């Protein structure tokens, strides 16, 4: 019985080794660590609208949680795959309209509210754009995690290509940069289509204060 056990353990061991080796030649992401998984599982409880499903990572989150690999030469193929998954998830505006109302867009850009466990399910979620970006120069309280968006349209014009790029970037920034710090606003339904149209106007409408 004992010998049987050792034998079967050996078989399992070899099998595990082979599968790890095969996997690593394909993705070589950091190894799955049962101890870490248990710590995360035991470390959180659901509260209000913030359920435990929020720590169930999708492929993008898993990949980007290992920045050493994600930024490596070896990670290049996987980066491209992640970007494609995210690009494929983007929907162009259902009414064909890309540009909404910049005034509403400014309000969305200002608000950093929503989606925390102290918010209700119907708390309007803001874009939180000023948290990380300079946008209208008149707002001096802006963050620096993202690039400045002052004069966004004025500097870049309003070609169809730029419009679609900007739409895509707000909808799902990971389509261009697998591990961009920017939330995927449409992917997780943080913002709806109309809100994104309004943010588009803030950046691209020649009448928007951003482009003065």
């Amino acid at each position: 019985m004992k010998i049987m056990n050792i034998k079967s353990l050996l078989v399992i061991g070899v099998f595990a080794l082979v599968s790890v080796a095969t996997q690593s030649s394909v993705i070589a992401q950091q190894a799955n660590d049962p101890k870490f998984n248990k710590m995360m599982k035991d470390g959180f409880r659901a509260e209000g609208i913030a359920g435990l499903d929020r720590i169930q990572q999708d492929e993008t989150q898993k990949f980007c949680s290992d920045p050493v690999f994600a930024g490596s030469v070896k990670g290049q193929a996987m980066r491209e795959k992640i970007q494609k998954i995210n690009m494929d998830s983007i929907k162009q505006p259902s009414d064909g309209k890309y540009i909404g109302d910049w005034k509403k867009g400014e309000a969305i850009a200002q608000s950093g509210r929503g989606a925390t466990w102290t918010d209700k399910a119907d708390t309007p979620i803001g874009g939180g754009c000023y948290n990380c970006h300079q946008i209208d120069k008149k707002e001096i309280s802006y963050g620096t995690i993202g690039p400045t968006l002052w004069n966004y349209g004025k500097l870049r014009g309003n070609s169809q290509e730029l419009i679609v790029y900007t739409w895509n970037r707000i909808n799902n920034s990971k389509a261009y940069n697998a591990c961009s710090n920017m939330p995927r606003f449409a992917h997780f339904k943080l913002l709806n289509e109309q809100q994104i149209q309004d943010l588009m106007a803030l950046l691209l409408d020649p009448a928007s204060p951003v482009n003065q």
Partner: protein
Amino acid sequence: MQRKFTLGLTLGILAASISLSSLVFAQTATDEIAKYREMIADGNPSELYEVAGEDLWKTPAGPKNATLEKCDLGLGPGVVKGAAAQLPRYFKDTNKVQDLESRLMTCMQKLQGRNPQEMVDAPFQKGPKKDMEAIVAYVVTLSKGDKIKVSTNHPKEKEMYELGKRAFYFQGGPMDFSCASCHGEDGKRIRLQDLPNLTTQKGAALGWGYWPAYRVSSGQFWTMQQRLNDCYRQQRFPFPIYASDLTIALSMYMAKNANGGTVETPGLKR
């Protein structure tokens, strides 16, 4: 009373100067906050918590009606001075790596017979947590000025550090955030709030070294556990369980990175 009034007045002036500074530039507002900190540095309201904490430390309480004076925070039973500067650490009696708050829970259980689950379940700033906050203020004040000196010599300490590092980079939630989203690069801000890069010694010392702190915006003394809890709230994560290994691992990661920095607790924060 006098101090409260002065604090209120200073706050008012600060608020006014911040709204005025919308005419000026962002950097100026940051400077104003720095000036304000300097102004009330001699009167950190944490002192009120600290005094209450010392009282709680020395007054018999709990089912066993005992004090915490024999509590071993890592430097031997009853030694408080300098203890917080070397936490988290491995404790033989529990066979665990513990941060200050989880260790205090052990002392409350062993010496006073208090139920640790009640502490875990209590909301911040209420009931047993209120006692915890005061005791933490007392303990960390007795390390003020010491060098941060956290060890990873014990295998469990080393393991906790590695787990904490991995947790620091763990992305999740509807905004894909991890701790590193905000605290992984130098010189970044959210709105006007400077963000320390906790992956470097300098940044970690700025973060770890100044918490627990009195938070002016909420008028409350916040322990490190509460600070981490609010980070996860803003990350849009579920609720981190008080004193869970996850929270201790993150503290271990920050504290070890901060080694050599100075303990400035209790800090004074926005």
